[in-house]
């Protein structure tokens, strides 16, 4: 083989890790002393012969973790080793299958698959031959001259797989590879991936898949790591002992899924101790800060969930709820979190139970619902309370967006601050606490005159 990258395939003894992460952290320094911790110090190993699934809610840093393990992103602290060598100096051989496929739309299917080989200086004939063989393997024989945009989503992800596998990676990384596909296509691709893996059709020695789909993780993985958030950390790391092929309907399977739901919804245990910087200064951890993180859910979603719960006698398994709604955890958990934050709901042992105020909320008509939401929001959500107070204290009752962004900046990344405010606007508008002028980027209190004016505006 003329390929430069496979010149030194270090044969690791069984059990030794291909990639080992030691105390890797990711944080963003802020102008003030604070820094925003995205992932707290984490150890992780990828060992040969296993499919490892990384599971977690949004904001737990799954993708960041993947990028640090592939060398795409440098950890803020700690080190990643590739066969015992620091990853920045090692000749590593990995591939990534992306959520958005990341195919080059101006290259044909064949050219897309050939491109990584071209980067490694493989001569044209060999390049073509290997690519065609790989396209054949993933079931794309005959599509080599097509452009990606002519293919369906599933076909496009097949090209993504062919491109990833053609370089014969030692570890195949996948970043939510099936989440942009419809349910049937995803199912189909998953089983084909398992087939390739178990038949040893691909020379890959380990697979690392990031996902927010619990069933997908249980279906595929030999080992599952569940991440918690704020900042990202490992909640649990366990082996899946079910034999392949796995049956979704079997008791062992559903129990495992239920267990993971419980882990994900169980309130975090407080951190053992506040980490300190080298110079002894304390790092402020988000868990110790006073703004709670607003879950990005809409009030309408909360109302819908509560009404559904009420139909089920006020209590149900979160796992079953997600199943009924055909929701993935990324869709459902923010709604559950929001309802919990507002005091409409309690989570116990993976079950969601409606509270008294929650039941009243679900039973009311829209205007009363808004009233209840307003009460719950002002008592439970600090940010909303502060916005209202700031608006009331100003004589003109308007405050620019930056004022609140500055407050949030202390605690969240720029992007997250924006999203926090966006959610606050949605909640505030629903509760009729305040309004937001998007073109002037200012918050303001709706006055009676203005409401009349907007009513008049329609037929001027």
């Amino acid at each position, binding site marked *: 083989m003329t390929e430069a990258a496979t010149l030194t395939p270090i044969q690791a003894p069984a059990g030794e890790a291909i990639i080992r992460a030691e105390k890797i952290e990711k944080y963003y320094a802020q102008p003030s002393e604070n820094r925003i911790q995205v992932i707290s110090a984490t150890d992780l190993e990828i060992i040969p012969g296993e499919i490892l699934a990384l599971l977690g809610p949004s904001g737990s840093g799954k993708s960041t973790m993947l990028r640090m393990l592939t060398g795409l992103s440098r950890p803020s602290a700690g080190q990643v080793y590739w066969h015992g060598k620091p990853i920045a100096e090692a000749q590593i051989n990995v591939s990534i299958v992306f959520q958005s496929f990341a195919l080059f739309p101006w290259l044909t299917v064949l050219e897309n698959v050939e491109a990584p080989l071209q980067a490694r*200086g493989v001569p044209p004939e060999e390049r073509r031959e290997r690519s065609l063989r790989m396209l054949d393997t993933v079931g794309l024989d005959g599509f080599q001259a097509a452009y990606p945009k002519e293919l369906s989503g599933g076909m496009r992800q097949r090209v993504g797989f062919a491109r990833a596998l053609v370089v014969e990676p030692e570890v195949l990384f996948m970043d939510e590879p099936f989440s942009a596909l419809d349910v049937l296509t995803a199912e189909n691709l998953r089983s084909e991936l398992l087939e390739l893996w178990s038949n040893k059709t691909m020379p890959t020695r380990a697979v690392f898949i990031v996902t927010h789909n619990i069933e997908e993780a249980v279906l595929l993985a030999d080992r599952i790591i569940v991440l918690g958030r704020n900042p990202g950390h490992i909640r649990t790391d366990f082996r899946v002992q079910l034999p392949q092929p796995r049956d979704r309907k079997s008791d062992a399977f559903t129990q495992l899924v239920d267990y993971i739901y419980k882990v994900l919804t169980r309130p975090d245990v407080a951190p053992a101790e506040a980490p300190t910087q080298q110079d002894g200064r304390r790092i402020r951890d988000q868990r110790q800060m006073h703004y709670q993180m607003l879950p990005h859910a809409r009030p309408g979603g909360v109302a819908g969930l509560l009404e559904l719960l009420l139909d089920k006698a006020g209590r149900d398994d979160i796992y079953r709820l997600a199943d009924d709604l055909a929701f993935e955890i990324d869709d459902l958990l923010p709604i559950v979190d929001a309802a919990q934050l507002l005091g409409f709901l309690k989570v116990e042992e993976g079950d969601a139970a409606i509270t008294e105020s929650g039941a009243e909320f679900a039973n009311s008509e829209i205007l009363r619902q808004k009233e209840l939401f307003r009460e719950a929001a002002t008592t439970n959500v600090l940010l909303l309370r502060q916005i209202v107070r700031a608006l009331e204290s100003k004589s003109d009752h308007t405050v620019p967006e930056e004022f609140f962004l500055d407050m949030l900046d202390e605690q969240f990344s720029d992007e997250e601050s924006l999203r926090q405010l966006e959610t606050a606007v949605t909640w505030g508008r629903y509760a009729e606490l305040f309004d937001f002028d998007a073109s002037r980027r200012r918050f303001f209190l709706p006055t009676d005159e203005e409401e009349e004016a907007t009513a008049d505006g329609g037929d001027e």
Partner: protein
Amino acid sequence: MKLQHPFARSLVTVRSWPFVIDLGVAFFSLALFFGVLHIARYWLGTPSPVVPISHSPSALPLYAFYSVVRIGIAYLLSLAFAIAYGYTAAYNPRIEAWMVAVLDILQSIPVLSFLPPVVLAMVALIPGHQLGIELGVIMLIFTGQVWNLAFSFYSSLKSIPREMSEASRIYRYSAWQRFWQLEMPYAAIGLVWNSIVSVAGGWFALMLCEMFTMGDRNFQLPGLGSYIQSAADSGDVTALLSGIGVVILIVVATDQLLWRPLIAWSDKFKFEQVESADRADSPILELLRRSRLSSLPGRIWTSLEEPIYRHLARSRAAQVIRPIDDDADKSKGALFFWALAVAVLIAAAWALVQAITLLRAISFADMRHLLAGAFATFLRVNAALLISALWTIPAGVAIGFNPKLARIVQPVAQVMASVPASAFYPVLLMGLLQIGGGLGIGSILLMLLGTQWYILFNVIAGAMSIPSDLREVTRLFRFTRWQRWTKLILPGIFPYLITGMVTASGGAWNASVMAEYAHVKTGIIQTVGLGAEISSATDAGSFPIILLATILISLMVVTMNRLVWRRLYRLAETRFRLEG
């Protein structure tokens, strides 16, 4: 924006044509060879600043050839510069903000302000050959073309989707491969559209700078610009009109033979997941694709490329993955950065001292004169914008709401926007003098000539983009005419209108230099204005006035951009965007 070519299309299907095309390509290459030979002989000859211009129509092809070569070379230079500049700015976070700001300022300077320094520098650099003067003119055209190309390439690089660049990194693309397989394709569409605007700008500049006076030195190069100007000076109407005719012919031919095929070809670089139904097509491109010779460049390219890839794959950099966050790392190349910063600082300080000594020569009266001129030009530019908006909005909306009409008018408006307004100035001037109008009002007309097409073109596009269900809603609820305009049409075309106005405003400022001051048969006519100050100062070789007037213009343009256009743009992007 599609033209129907049923006739040409039916020809395409005839199998015997590719051979004719092959012959055509061969013939064209031969012509090119002799062209290069001719140009080389002329350039390397002894310099003669004033080449006598013949008014005979038979001289026109040669003049057209000279002008096209000048614009072509200037365009290639601009493209290379734009790519280098955009690349450097996008990948060096330390200097990024500075480079963008410099671009912003340079863009606001009218082409003619560059004239004296650039031409003098080039003549001094290459003495003893015609090449020196020629390069001076080419550099001027370059300054009329380059800035928006650089902006376009820079912003394309900045907007490459994250996962795409991650893919190129995890598969260890070399910078070379990344450039050809990711960055260039991603930027291609923006570059093609901006090239159209740029070359139009190049023609505008060419008309001005082939023939000019600077102090006691006259320059007159063989070309279409000189032809038209000297025809106007001598009152030769036939020559004037045939000169303009040739310019229009070339612009239309460029549009059909170059831009349309390029737009159709660049369609494949569209960053879309699903194929859109609305595809640009070009019969010329179809013909070229069917030619047997068309695969030749591709084959040559591949054979050149392979050794490069093999060589790059062996390099150390190709073996490891470079973390993406290192790009934003400001500590890299610190030494180089500081060396550069010091050099730039010294140069800037020197330039400042020079500028101040120059500016000391300006008297208080001059200063007052300039400020009055600035005010007058400001009013004129905005009047021109207002007038163009006033007629193009109703006309453009009427055209845009009628798809059949729009399909015919829009390409025409696009071509009209590419025809250099400066070619028409002499004709318009003659007309103005006939009816006895002064340049004070006349210059507004002259500015209008160049600016209105951009706005019309964009308004049509805007009106076409208003979804028909929204229009049906206004009909269903019996909106009054007033309501229809204020609630639907004006908000709907707003983003497009702003885009058109921004381009037009830049063009109007640029045009002011020429519109406010003119040589005619009887002498010089001018009006109060900043543009007139620059022109007359160039004639007189008075550098302090040029410098101060240029500073004033670019100050006003940059301020207007910051205070007005950018805000309106943001408003257009947020509030008035028609989504889904």
